[in-house]
């Protein structure tokens, strides 16, 4: 696992020396900023009431589709290069002939992506600070909101890593990840459609359901358990995909 740490460091380093990271972060923050501005404008026009429960911040963290749709696009962009790029450039050969196991490659790269995910969200703390200057902010709910976002990262990025491990290049990897995430998102909407006996099943898949609980300040460990389980299963599959490559050539 020492190799995983080495790979993690290189991956983080190469994220941040490439223009890609800055283009992604800039677009992401621009998008978040516009969404927050629209929500703030909307709530400013509403009559007072509801208190901290009903503020632009709660709406920002999962109250609207504006929160989810960019994730479906940005997650594939973060994970697409992880393994597919190595394969495309041929550096996978140098990497996999070093004394490292497939698991450490997958784990190192996954945690690098997770760190980038955190880096994407850190600047949004500014919105919390801004809102807190002009009104009451339920810091507990904000904290759980961020925990929920981290959970979604754990879940979505693992799927991205798997798609990157099975793709010949970055484009295919991005498309596969987008299709998989959009599919899960749409299926997750089933929680609002189907009867009680199936509702729970869909609710787990749905990140909307995730955020509904977390942004109200409720830490639902079932969701976190689900996120971690999905990550473990998909990352094992990704490891298997890398191992299978040796046989297929």
């Amino acid at each position, binding site marked *: 696992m020492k190799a995983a740490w080495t790979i993690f460091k290189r991956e983080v380093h190469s994220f941040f020396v490439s223009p890609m990271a800055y283009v992604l972060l800039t677009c992401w923050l621009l998008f978040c900023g516009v969404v927050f501005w629209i929500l703030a404008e909307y709530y400013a026009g509403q009559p007072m009431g509801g208190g901290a429960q009903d503020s632009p911040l709660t709406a920002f963290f999962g109250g609207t589709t504006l929160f989810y749709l960019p994730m479906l696009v940005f997650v594939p962009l973060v994970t697409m290069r992880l393994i597919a790029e190595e394969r495309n450039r041929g550096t996978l050969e140098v990497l996999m002939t070093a004394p490292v196991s497939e698991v450490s490659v997958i784990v190192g790269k996954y945690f690098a992506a997770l760190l980038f995910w955190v880096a994407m969200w850190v600047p949004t703390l500014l919105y919390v600070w801004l809102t807190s200057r002009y009104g009451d902010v339920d810091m507990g709910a904000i904290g759980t909101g961020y925990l929920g976002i981290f959970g979604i990262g754990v879940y979505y990025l693992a799927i991205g890593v798997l798609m990157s491990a099975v793709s010949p290049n970055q484009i295919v990897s991005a498309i596969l990840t987008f299709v998989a995430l959009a599919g899960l998102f749409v299926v997750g909407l089933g929680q609002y459609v189907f009867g009680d006996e199936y509702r729970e099943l869909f609710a787990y898949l749905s990140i909307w359901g995730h955020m509904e609980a977390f942004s109200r300040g409720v830490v639902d460990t079932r969701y976190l358990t689900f996120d971690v389980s999905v990550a473990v299963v998909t990352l094992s599959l990704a490891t298997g995909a890398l191992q299978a490559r040796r046989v297929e*050539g």
Partner: protein
Amino acid sequence: MIRVDNLTKSYGRHEAVRGLAFEVPQGQVCGFLGPNGAGKSTTLRMITGFLSPTTGTIHISGVDALAKPIEARRHIGYMPEACPLYPEMRVGEYLRYRAELKGVPRASIAARVKQSLAQAAVADVEHRIIDQLSKGYRQRVGLADALVADPPLLVLDEPTAGLDPNQIRQVRTLIGELAKNKTVLISTHILPEVEAICDRVLILSKGKMVSDGRPTSLRDALRSQETLRIVGRGSKGAFEDVFAKLDDIHVVKLTWRDGLVTGLLEATGEPDASERVFSAVAEAGLTLRELSRQQASLEDVFTNLTTSEPEAPAARGDEEEE
């Protein structure tokens, strides 16, 4: 150092490597020679653990490379064909990363990187971004990477491909230096390279080994098949009669022009065919103006082994000798 038995690799129905078996002792510089698609890269990739064989066994320094792949890879410094590198990294940065990845103890990383930079003659570009380097430098950075953990075995896949003559000479000199205290397995399709640096050459064709020997013994193998060029005075018919009497001389071409006969002969029997040709011509009262032996070059051996049927008599004889 390397022991390979019954190695086979199939891609679907296509068999890229078929029943390969060889052993490379410590300290040897062994060249893998063969046309493109002969299975050289596939074999090297199996030895380095990038591909797993369909059947067969591989031992590196006594370690079963299929049962303990990670331990086996610790003994190998590998430079793949085309030498892929991370373009966004700086040379020194890259080598430090590779040293750490290969498990070089933290305390000795700086020293190892410095030494490999010097060995591969890339110390002057330590702080440059790999993307901006020329092909020759990149190739040597790949070599520095192979050396950084100081492995006893170097596996280099076409280390001089795509370089200009000067760079090729530099890389060869470098490999010659390294060969003094390492075992080297190198693949190439350039023949003079093998003659220049290898102690031993294995020739692959269509996934099979067709020859195994020293570069010089390979050439000797083809000695018995000499090509003679003659220019003599006389009629074409007279020369034809003389050569018809010699059993082991085969006339490839004979032309007459302005009283001179120019011919190309192939001698398959015993050595010193030129002496027999000379005396036969003299006995017949004809005059020879020129008689020269065309030395079989490694190129001829190579073409012979890889284009004709693999069971060429010359190659077989050589194998028995080993």
